[in-house]
Structures are given as C-alpha cells and as structure tokens.
C-alpha cells in the first residue's frame, strides 16, 4: 500500500470512529447522563386524572389534540371519560387546574426529550401562584 492509500484508509477509519462514537464522547465531555425527569404530583392533592396514569403517559397528546378538534370545530366541551365521569374539555381550566405548575410537570419530560408542543403558541402559561 502506498502513502496515498494509507492516508485514505486512516481517514475513512478515523471519520467512521468519530461519527459512530460521537454520542458516547459527547456524553463524557459535556453530557449530563444522570438527569432524569422529576414530575411533581398535583399540589392540590388530586389523585385521579381524566384517564388512567399509564394511558395518559402515552396518549395525553392525542387526547389534547382530540379535545381541541371537538371544542374548536364542534363547539362541544363535554368529555365523557372511560369511567363515565364527565369533564370540561379545556387545557387551561381543566388540566392546569390540577397541574398548576408547567415547569414541574409538562416541561419535565418535554425538555428531557426535546419535544416542543405548540400548545403555548396560543395558550397563556398560567402565572405561578407564589411568584
């Protein structure tokens, strides 16, 4: 193998290794692997959400999406949950009445996974009670 070939081979292997190992190197250099979301339960002590906690964890975005469609397009604000209980379909006055603190609830997971929900493009973030 000549000099040109050696350089090319070295380059291909080096670029490959850097690219493949970049997340690992990144986490060692600037990463904060230990930080995990820390959700605070609703300060009001409410135990029961609109649907079960497990279901909400995966599907809350779909629920909010459906609520928006139903309210805005059909003018219907009544949600009948799977346990038969009825709720007022409203992000600000229903969801946020229990989950009062966006920073300690919504943002915990959304920031962790860099999800940027566009709820707050229109909705106003409620002011903190103690602020």
């Amino acid at each position, binding site marked *: 193998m000549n000099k040109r070939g050696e350089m*090319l081979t070295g380059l291909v292997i080096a670029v490959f290794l850097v690219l493949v190992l970049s997340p690992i190197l990144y*986490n060692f250099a600037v990463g904060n692997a230990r930080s995990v979301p820390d959700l605070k339960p609703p300060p009001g002590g409410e135990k029961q959400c609109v649907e079960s906690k497990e279901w909400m964890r995966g599907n809350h975005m779909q629920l909010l999406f459906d609520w928006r469609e139903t309210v805005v397009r059909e003018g219907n604000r009544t949600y009948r949950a799977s346990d038969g209980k009825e709720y007022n379909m409203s992000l600000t006055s229903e969801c946020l009445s229990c989950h009062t603190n966006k920073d300690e609830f919504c943002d915990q997971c959304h920031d962790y996974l860099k999800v940027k929900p566009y709820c707050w493009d229109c909705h106003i973030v409620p002011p903190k009670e103690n602020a």
Partner: protein
Amino acid sequence: MKVLSALVAVAVLVLIAAIGTGLAPLQYVFGVVVPYAAFAVFVAGFVYRVAKWAKSAVPYRIPTTCGQQKSLDWVKHSKLEAPHTTGQVVVRMLLEVFLFRSLFRNTRTNLEDDDDGGKKLVYTSSKWLWLGGITFHLAFFTIVLRHLRFFTEPVPFLVQSVEGVDGFFQMTLPALYQTDLVIVGALTYLFLRRLFDPKVRYISLANDYFPLLLILSIAATGILMRHVWRVDVVGIKELAMGLASFSPTVPDGIGTLFYIHLFLVSTLVAYFPFSKLMHLAGVFMSPTRNLPNNSREVHHVNPWNYDVKVHTYAEYEDEFREVMKAAELPVEKE
C-alpha cells in the same frame, strides 16, 4: 423463494424479540447485552473490512472514466469524468457520495415506436432508481440524526433543529415526520422494483431483499411506536442514555414494540459489516473512484517490482572478449 426467505428471516427476528421480552423477562438481554454486542461487532467488523480492503494491491490507476482525459492544452479536458488531480477526484467523490452522480446517469435501452409504425432503439436515462435511492438515503440519514435526541443530554442544537424541520407541517400529535413517509415510500419502491421488474428480479438475491425488509420493519415499528401503540419514551431515553454512558439501566414498563425495534436495529448493525451495506465505506475505498486518471502523465512504478538482475550484451562481450577473438567471432569493441 429468495423474497420468502428474507421475509421469514425478518419475521423470525421480530418473533424472537417479541417472545424474549413479551413472554420471557429478558429485557436486560434485549435492551443491553444484544445492543452492546451488535455495536461491538459493527465497529470491529467495519474497521476489519476497511483494513482488509486497504491491503489489496492497487498497482495501476484504474479509475472509471467517461470523458476526455487530461491531454494537450487545446484538447478540452473533462475534469469530473476523468479527474487527473486529487482535488478533482475529491470533487467527483463528493458528488458521488452526496448526489449519487453515477446512478443519475443510469442509461437504459428501450424500444420505442417510430414514425413509420415500426420500432426504434433508444437510450434513455432512467431516474427512478436514483430518486428512490437518494430519498431513502437522505431520509435514513435524517432519522439517524434525529435519534441522537435519545443518546445525548443536553440535546445538541443541530439535532433539535433537524427535528423541528422534519415535523414542520405539524400534522397529528406527536408531529408526523416527513422523513417517515419518505423512507417508507422509497423502501417500498425499491422493494417492489426488485419484485416486479423481471430483469432486476432475476439478479436479486436473498441478501438484496433482506436489508430492504429489515429496514422497512425498523421504520414500521418506529412509526407504530410514535403514532399507534405508544411506548414510554422517557423510559426509552433512560435506557439509551445508560447505553451511551456505559452505565446501563433497564427501566420497567417499556413496551415490547420498542424491544422489537431495538432488536431489529441491533441485527442491522451487526449484519452491516458483512453485507452489501458496506458500500458505505466501499465507495471511498473503491480504486475506480478514488484514483486520479493520470496514467499517461505520471510514471507509476509498481512498488513491489522484483529487482531483476540483467546482463547486457556490452557486459557479456567485456567478459568473453578474449575467448570470442580466439574463436574468431566478431566483437563490437576491440
């Protein structure tokens, strides 16, 4: 038959992961052991293949050319088709890697109706394969980049912006990624092309179908996790971060679908160095692409030429002059 064996192989992989984590409690095996093993095989196998290629003898310049080589100044040189300097080779290589330039040419022979009601032979450039190929590759690249949000904390700005652009249309919640649609469309085209074009079908092997079906299954499980049977994404990020920082943890309650996805990805990654997918490195290591076309410009000496001992006539005559004279043979020098 070849399609079927590839299909069965993918189905078996899905079943293995489904049974291993759905019915048996092997989350640690499928979440930590298999991914680490696959990654190690990938890195070591990749380096091994490149090193092995590098050892091959390349005594001659063998670039593929399709244009006028560098000649006298008044002959127009085709710089990209017959590059004669390293710089031109690099430009041609970049166009090849990023735009699949040689595939863009893809000349096809067809019979078309001519004006007299007969047939005529025409050569056309078929772009469909190029389009399917490049959209698949770019979508796959974007998807890999997007996945870095699971392996980094804090997530780099670049990854965030890629994700923002990819979900630009804000259809559905969580936002539908355009690359998801593109990769499924492109893979489906590439797969159907192998099935329904008789010429391509004839030369297709199981190891042509297998990567297509495998990647298609990976994309499908990923889309299902995001839009249909949702899984615990926070738990998945904890698992991924654990893997990327060498302190693996397996949170409870991550859906089986995720483990199927991860097992298919592990398979792809471990299979990669030993398959045709190595064209990722092969394109750079290919002597028909990475050598300048300067055979008539530079004297290339074969580096391992044997040093042949020669005995010229002049030396021969010097050695035997007296004997030759005595035998009355003619000599050139007295």
